[in-house]
């Protein structure tokens, strides 16, 4: 296992669209292990995407236990992830290992259903909400070359949240 080095903005490699994973071999397993170790070593330590370490493949790892304890899915290895459903919107302040020293407000869905494969290629489905859902959406953005900087909103946007909005 090894801690990989993180690309930081404005490195153009962060803006590439990542390719789907089609081969689930030992090389992938090793990479997932390294990526996981790199995530835990980072300042946030709760999520990472392969493009952040200069590997343009659709691989995301999220583990929000450092933040939420056991009240979450724990370690999720999301390969070729897709958002199957989402609902609700919430404003939250985000930072990113690839954008050091800056945080900003971003709107994300409050609840999501994500479908992905695990490191062995098995189909998985997760329902996430709140902080965990935010982490997954943030990391999935990296796969399409987006940073949270592409989704910044002004503080005032928070006003438009309704106390009881209809679904």
């Amino acid at each position, binding site marked *: 296992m090894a801690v990989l080095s993180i690309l930081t903005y404005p490195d153009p490699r962060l803006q590439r669209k990542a390719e789907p994973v089609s081969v689930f071999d030992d090389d992938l397993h090793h990479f997932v292990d390294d990526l996981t170790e790199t995530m835990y070593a*980072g*300042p*946030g330590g*709760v*999520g*990472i995407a392969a493009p952040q370490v200069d590997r343009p493949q659709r691989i995301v790892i999220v583990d929000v236990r450092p*933040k939420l304890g056991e009240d979450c899915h724990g370690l999720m290895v999301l390969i070729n992830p897709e958002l199957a459903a989402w609902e609700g919107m919430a404003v*939250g*302040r*985000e*930072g*990113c*290992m690839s954008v050091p020293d800056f*945080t900003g407000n971003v709107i994300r869905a409050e609840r999501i259903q994500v479908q992905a494969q695990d490191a062995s290629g098995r189909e998985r489905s997760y329902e996430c909400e709140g*902080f965990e859902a*935010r*982490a997954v959406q*943030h*990391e999935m953005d990296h796969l399409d070359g987006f940073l*949270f900087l592409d989704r910044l909103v002004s*503080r*005032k946007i*928070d*006003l438009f949240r309704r*106390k009881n909005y209809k679904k």
Partner: protein
Amino acid sequence: MSQALLTVIGEDRPGIVAAVTQALFTADCSIGDASMMRLGGYFTIMQVIDYPRDLGSVEMALDPAIKRLNLRVHLDPISSVALTADMPNTRVTVYGADHPGIVAGVTGALAAIGFNVIDLESESSGSAERPLYVMVIQGYAPEGVESVRKAVVPLREREGVEIGVHPIEAAVF
């Protein structure tokens, strides 16, 4: 480089930001934190600038824009070191039927618990018969978000406004 706080006020029209920032650029200034927004019919700029020589040359560079756009400009030299650099940990949102005393009431309650207002934006809207006041405050509560929740409870009743208190947590992913 020295720092100054530049204040610009003028009747709102297109081109104010462009003219002011272009003038600063030609005077070799760089722009730091800035707040630029329309207030009433006026456009306002408050920004920290770094300038290389003296403030006189900054004023001189701004002069054509000031005359052309009829701006009022003020430059205050400031020390480069912020006395308090607390990051906001609490956002307070207030809305309700507009009436005098909302801001004083809310900020008075916040000051009493040592809350430091870092950013306050407010807007009067709604119709003339039913004016609506909306305010968003971001600041640092030394005793945490719960202390703010407690502090604003009596205000809901007294001022007849809705007050939301939310933690500001920057999640680093």
